[in-house]
């Protein structure tokens, strides 16, 4: 049996072992059921939260991919516009006319628009940072949770944790506390999946 709480034993695996050993050491049926219930709940909580972290990382990957695509695009436009501008300016020097000046204005407008897209795309840094902070907070709570609940997963196979009723009560209370902490303290603030501009509302 591993110490990793993410791989807690399944109910099917342990039920028979727990029952046999409980008979031997005199644990009550009720205590056994509570122990199994606690294990199941810890397993579900850890599994759910690791899924949240995985979803965060997927979202982060989408944001970074979108940012990279948009910024690469704006880079190509800016470099092309810059070259176009240089060539057009050299035409002004040779044969100044209004059509050349109009073309320079067009290039300037194009570059302004590209700058806007760049500004919008560079905001990925803020959202990526907040997503990473969310992951960090989740993992910090999960690390403490896993440490506290490690007692449910003893390293010696076939030996169930010898927990008294009040210790089980404590663990149930801790599990409840961690669930609250994971819900409240690790509230997710970044919902964006891309770098499209967000909603605007005036009050």
């Amino acid at each position, binding site marked *: 049996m591993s110490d990793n709480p993410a791989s807690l034993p399944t109910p099917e695996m342990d039920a028979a072992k727990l029952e046999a050993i409980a008979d031997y050491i005199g644990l009550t049926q009720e205590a056994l059921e509570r122990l199994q219930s606690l294990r199941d709940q810890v397993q579900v909580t850890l599994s759910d939260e690791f899924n949240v972290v995985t979803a965060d990382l997927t979202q982060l990957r989408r944001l970074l991919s979108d940012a990279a695509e948009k910024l690469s695009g704006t880079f190509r436009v800016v470099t092309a516009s810059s070259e176009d501008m240089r060539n057009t300016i050299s035409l002004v020097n040779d044969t100044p006319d209004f059509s050349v000046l109009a073309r320079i204005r067009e290039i300037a407008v194009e570059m302004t628009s590209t700058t806007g897209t760049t500004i919008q795309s560079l*905001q990925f840094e803020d959202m990526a940072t907040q997503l990473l902070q969310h992951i960090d907070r989740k993992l910090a709570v999960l690390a403490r949770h896993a440490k506290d609940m490690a007692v449910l997963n003893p390293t010696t196979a076939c030996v169930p944790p010898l927990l008294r009723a009040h210790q089980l009560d404590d663990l149930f209370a801790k599990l409840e506390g961690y669930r609250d902490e994971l819900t409240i303290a690790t509230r997710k603030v970044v919902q964006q999946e891309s770098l499209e501009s967000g909603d605007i*509302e005036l009050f």
Partner: protein
Amino acid sequence: MSKTALIVDDSATMREMVSYTLKQAGFEPLTGANGQDGLDKLTGQQLDLIITDLNMPVMDGLSFIKAVRARDEYKFVPILMLTTESQVEMKAQGKAAGATGWLVKPFNPEMLLQVIGKVVPK
């Protein structure tokens, strides 16, 4: 005379992007890295606009707005919240605190300037 705007955000990238955008519209930007830092910049400073983030260390955006609105000289300065948050309850809290508007990140520079045009007197 150019108008002055205070930009409060814990992200240096965001402060730079908003500052750049406002400069294009003729604003002189001041910046703060969190609500408290923003408040420290307010000492008698004439302001035409405040743009603030919501989630920041030290002092968050809601507390910052309440503190700003508590000062007579800044009671009517337009305050735009620029945040990743889009929840209706959070917007309601922002409105109650005294925000003038709510913009969800990422912002589009052109659209930000349009909104500013609506809330800042010419």
